[in-house]
Structures are given as structure tokens and as C-alpha cells.
């Protein structure tokens, strides 16, 4: 399954998510042809149950899709659509075709089938047709809602550091397309966790591509009469980069594998920490090895490095997730530490507090 998914998405992205397309989409252009091809592949519906129009694929197998999105810096909310349809499915709502995104940051109240409030940091919010989020988060009955973006009273446009849309949408008495109670097995932070999960795989993919680009450059570029990759100082940096990329890769894969049915919050948190730290180290080394050329818009390095800088912060920084792990670990004390680590798939973090600027 994974092999077919991977080869399919790779073929599709190789053709339609070229560096030129990615660059042209920064700032808000929409890659209609790419999205059409993705919809046709059926991937947007993959995680939903078969009974609700999906293919009931688990996250373990979807890992390769999210990683490929990162490797190609794909300027589309495919990961977001998969997660949105997965949550709709959990709530018993029919899977959505079309451009679907989600909001983990929501301050939304639901009354009589209509919502008031705002959604923040919505990926491709300006382009999405529908959005999944959770209303009445702090009540006894948090509710999964599906909204049509056209019913938003207003939008506030934002771009992350890679020029990807991260918009806010404001609703005032807008009718929901569908709603259903959040199942008791899911926490209200399920979309935050899902977002962290997606970004960890995208970071792993982007790091992989960036490592290949950087070691290739080091082999070709000569200075002082030999390839710069022949200098010990450069070799040592590239080795560190490879280690970090490997750590990111396995941390992200572990998070998907252990979340196949329910989100494994400890492993997801660890994945976001490991990938965010690897993103920082990898982007720095890639730029250092490339020198000036890597700083130009025409060279594709920045398509990856700028996304690494964006994604490491989205759905919780390395600090936020570290602190949540740290709180859980300290709750268990030194005596319980090893058992916690080795039994981690069953461990869940307690509810978060989010700092904001």
C-alpha cells in the first residue's frame, strides 16, 4: 500500500509541483491543475471511513503522502484535507470533496446550527471551500462542525514565512453545513495534534530533499581546487545534517505508525520536537554549505528552508511540546521514567496551555 501511495504521489508532484509552481504560488496563487490531479487521486478522502465516502486508510500508511508533500514543498492543503475528512469521519459526517482545510485554533460558539467567532491560522483559508473545526471547545459538549468559507463574515489574510496562506476567518451567525458531537475518545486538541503530526512528516520530507540537494552541491562545487565536500569541516557538518534528518524521519514515522487508529500524543509530541530541532539544524547547515547561491530566489534551496522555518513553529513549537512532555515526565517522577518511555504508546499528554504573543 505505502509503495503505491508513494509512487503515485511522487509522480504527480514531480509533474505538477515543480519549483516554478511552488514559487509562483507563494503569496497566494492557487495551483488549480495540481489540486485537480490530487482530488482525482482520491487521497483527500483516504482517511475517512468507507461508509462515509472514504477509503479507511490508517495514518501508518498515509505517512508517505505527508512526507512527499514536504519533499516537494507542495503548495496545497492535501494533508489538511486528509485530517479534516478523518475528523469528519470520526464524528460520523460524510467526507468532503473540494478544497477542505481545518482550524486547530478556534474560538467558536454554536447555537441553533449557526456559529459565531473566529478561526485562526487556517491553512489556505482563502482558497478552501469548506473547513472543519471544533466549536464550543470549553463546554461539556465540544462539537465537530463543517463550515462553508463563503459564509464567513470576513477574512484576515496572513502568510507564513514560506508564503503559504494562514488566514483567519470570522463568522457571525453562519449556518454550519454539518455538525456532530466530538466523540468522547477524542480530546478537543485533536486538530492541534493532527496538525503537529502532519507537519512532522512534512519536515522529515523537506529535510530529506534538502540533504540530497546539499550533499549534491558539496560534491560538485569546487573551491581551492577541490570539491568543498572534500573539506573535513564541511563533511562533519553534512554528517550532522544526515543524523538530524534521520532522527526526524524516524520520529515522524513513529508518530504516524503509533497513531494508526488513535493519536499517540506522547509520540506525536516527541516527533514535533525532534523534527523541529532537525529543521533548525538542517536549514542552517544547508545555507552554510551553499553560501551565497543558496540565498538567491532563483536557487530552490529556500523553497525548502523557508518551509522548515514555518512548519517548525506551526501547531506548537519545540518548546511547547517539550514542556508538555516534561510536565508528564515530572508527574511520573524519576522512578517511573523508564516505564513511561518504554510503554509510551499508551501514554497521553494531559491538556495543553498555549502561550501566545
Amino acid at each position, binding site marked *: 500500500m505505502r509503495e503505491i501511495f508513494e509512487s503515485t504521489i511522487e509522480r504527480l508532484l514531480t509533474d505538477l509541483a515543480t519549483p516554478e509552481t511552488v514559487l509562483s504560488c507563494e503569496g497566494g496563487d492557487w495551483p488549480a491543475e495540481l489540486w485537480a490531479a490530487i482530488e482525482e487521486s482520491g487521497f483527500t478522502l483516504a482517511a475517512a471511513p468507507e461508509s462515509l465516502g472514504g477509503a479507511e486508510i490508517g495514518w501508518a500508511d498515509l505517512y508517505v503522502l505527508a512526507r512527499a508533500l514536504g519533499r516537494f514543498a507542495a503548495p496545497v492543503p492535501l494533508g489538511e484535507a486528509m485530517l479534516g475528512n478523518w475528523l469528519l469521519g470520526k464524528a460520523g459526517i460524510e467526507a468532503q470533496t473540494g478544497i477542505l482545510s481545518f482550524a486547530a485554533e478556534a474560538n467558536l460558539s454554536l447555537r441553533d446550527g449557526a456559529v459565531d467567532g473566529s478561526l485562526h491560522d487556517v491553512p489556505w483559508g482563502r482558497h478552501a471551500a469548506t473547513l472543519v473545526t471544533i466549536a464550543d471547545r470549553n463546554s461539556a459538549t465540544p462539537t465537530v462542525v463543517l463550515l462553508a468559507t463563503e459564509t464567513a463574515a470576513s477574512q484576515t489574510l496572513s502568510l507564513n514565512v514560506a508564503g503559504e496562506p494562514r488566514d483567519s476567518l470570522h463568522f457571525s451567525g453562519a449556518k454550519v453545513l454539518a455538525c456532530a458531537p466530538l466523540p468522547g475518545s477524542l480530546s478537543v486538541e485533536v486538530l492541534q495534534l493532527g496538525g503537529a503530526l502532519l507537519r512532522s512528516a512534512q519536515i522529515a520530507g523537506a529535510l530529506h530533499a534538502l540533504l540530497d540537494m546539499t550533499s549534491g552541491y558539496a560534491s560538485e562545487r569546487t573551491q581551492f581546487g577541490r570539491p568543498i565536500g572534500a573539506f573535513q569541516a564541511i563533511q562533519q557538518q553534512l554528517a550532522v545534517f544526515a543524523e538530524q534528518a534521520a532522527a526526524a524521519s524516524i520520529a515522524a514515522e513513529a508518530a504516524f505508525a503509533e497513531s494508526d487508529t488513535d493519536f499517540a500524543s506522547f509520540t506525536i509530541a516527541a516527533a514535533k520536537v525532534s523534527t523541529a530541532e532537525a529543521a533548525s539544524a538542517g536549514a542552517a547547515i544547508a545555507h552554510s554549505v551553499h553560501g551565497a547561491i543558496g540565498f538567491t530566489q*532563483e536557487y530552490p534551496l529556500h523553497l525548502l528552508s523557508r518551509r522548515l522555518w514555518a512548519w517548525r513553529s506551526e501547531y506548537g513549537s519545540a*518548546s511547547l511540546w517539550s514542556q508538555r512532555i516534561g510536565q508528564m515526565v515530572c508527574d511520573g517522577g524519576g522512578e517511573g521514567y523508564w516505564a513511561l518511555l518504554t510503554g509510551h504508546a499508551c501514554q497521553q499528554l494531559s491538556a495543553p496551555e498555549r502561550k501566545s504573543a
Partner: protein
Amino acid sequence: MSITQFTYSTIPVEAESLRHEVRAFLQDHLGEYPATSRAQSWMGFDAAFSRQLGARGWVGMALPRQYGGAAAGPFARYVIIEELLAAGAPVSAHWIADRQSGPLINRFGTEAQRERYLPPICRGESYFCIGMSEPNSGSDLASIKTSASRNYGGWLLNGQKVWTTNAQHAQFMIALVRTGEKQAARHEGMSQFIVDLSLPGITIRPIRDLAGGEHFNEVFFDNVQLDADALVGTEGKGWDQVTAELAFERSGPERFLSCIELLKTLISAIGRHPDALQGREIGRLSAKLLTLRNMSLSVTAQLAAGEHPAWAASCVKDLGNLFEQEIPEVAQLLLEAEPRQQGGTEHAQVLAYLTQMAPSFSLRGGTREILRGIIARGMGLR
């Protein structure tokens, strides 16, 4: 060489007394200047501002009085520069002329060159760029190919420079080019020229950077006819002159203040009640900054005493770069404030801008590996 070279040095009272004056000036002239502009640090261009500084005597102030300078010592210039940088003032127009080209012409130029070029520099009206790197030369400047050959009218210039900061705004370039055959000694046969960028045969093409800005340029020379007096200094001694020039380039406050605006927006965004992590990191960065400034002042004292502290200057540059590049990294860990190209708070926008610019800081004046090589050589290891 030894770390005992770093001796604590303070700014003399007369230089320190300039601080109040320049702060008042900046308050008047940059009061409403937004943080997103200040974040450009010495990349911000504003010719009118440069002329105002020139009128106050703060451009080329270390140059002799007869050319419009103030014969000020290194500490007076240090105070002016660090205040401008700390405020994020747009100094890029005159920056290179003030910092490198003016001192170079004063030191190696002829009397006629001094009289011609230095007064407009001191007025903040004459802008220079430095033509060093070429395609494929990178850190290995001995491999440059652009050449000037003697002809009837002086010199005929051909070739190409790249990564030339501000070439699109500058009137002049100080170019390092080949004037002789490539020698056994890799660094011989090079000379420096003052190139009037309005001459025929010159094409300047800005290079767009990853953040969408245009600071770097490609500059092409196609049979550019230079006058005989375009040569500055001694024919064939260009490398030695450049090396002397680089000593100025490695230890000033511009080596560690590039992200000061982000540090300021970060501190304000954190507010008066930092948590233990925020307090630790802000305090740690502040301790480093204080120490870096003391190191930089120590090198300034050595320069003022006529010494050539290449080793010590490289220490400041390398530590300074690490510090500057660390600030966006730390900032994104202290607040859940995602960097924003569009929308978001001023802090989020400054964070986005400097996260993207930070990798370029270690391209300026020697890569990390080369700086550390200089230090290792100073320790007798190579």
C-alpha cells in the same frame, strides 16, 4: 597570539559624550520608523538620511579634516555606528563608503583621488560598493578572473563580479581585478580600481534574494575604459590592500547587532513577567551581547593603538555571527508567535524577515570555516 590580547577597554569620555547627541538626532529623524524597517539594519537605504548624517559630520568622520572629515578616533566612530545600528537606522547608502572605501582611498590613494572622492563621501552623497567575488570564486578570491589591461587611455576592464552589495545604488565600485598573469604566488598580480559605475559597458543586474529583496547584484564589465588614475594604490598589490581593508571589516558592532531589532520586539512581546525559560534565554543573550561588545571595544582599542589584531577581530566576527544567527532561533522557541510574511504582529513580521536574512550574515567577510582557520593559524596550528 593569545587571549591575553583581549584587555578590557572603555570608551573615552569625549567619544562617549557623542552618544546623547546621536540619540537625540535619531529620536527626531526616526521617531516613527517602524520595526519592520529597522530590522533591515545596515541594509536599509535612504539617501536623504545619509545626507543628513553627513551634514552632522557623522559620515567619514575618521577622515582628515581637509577632506571634510573630523579626524575622529575609532571610539568616536564606534559610538556613532553602534547607535545607528541599535536604532536600525537606514545607513546602507553611505555604509561602505564610510566603513571601507573612504579609509582605503585615504590610505592608498593619491592626493588627487583623496581630493576628488573623500569630500562627497563625508557629505553623505557619494556611495560605494565593493567588487570582490566572482562566479565560482566563493571564498577563494585568488581565483578571480576579471581583468584590467593597460591601453592608450588607461585601463580596459573586462569580466564580471557577483554578490556586490548595493551596486544598483552606488556611484562607484572599488574592484579587485587581475592586472598581471596568474603568478606562482596565488595572491599576486591583482590590483584595485575605482570604477565609475556610470561608464559605458557596465551592466548591473540585481539578484533577488530568498526574502524577495534586492541587495546583491551581478555587475558585468564589457570593455569598460578606465582612466589611468582609476588605479588605487599600487599595481599588483591589490591583495595586500584588501587584506588590510578586511581588518576593518571584522570586529565592529555591525558584526553582532544585525538582529537587535528582533531582540527588542521579542522582549516587548514577552512583557514584564518572563517565565523561567524566557528569562533564561533573554538573560543569556544579553550577557553574550555585553561580552561581545566588550570584546569589540577591546579590538577597537587595539586598532586605536595602531595594532593589527586580525586574530582577535576574527574571534569577534565568528562569535558575533553565531550570536546574530541564534536570535531568530531562540525567538521562535520563546513564544508561540509564528513568523509572518503578511499579517500577524510587528514582532511576527520582524521574526519572519530576520529568520530569512540570518543565513546571509555569515557570508559577510569570511565564512565560519575560514575565520576559524585564521584563529587556528594565530594559535600556531597551521
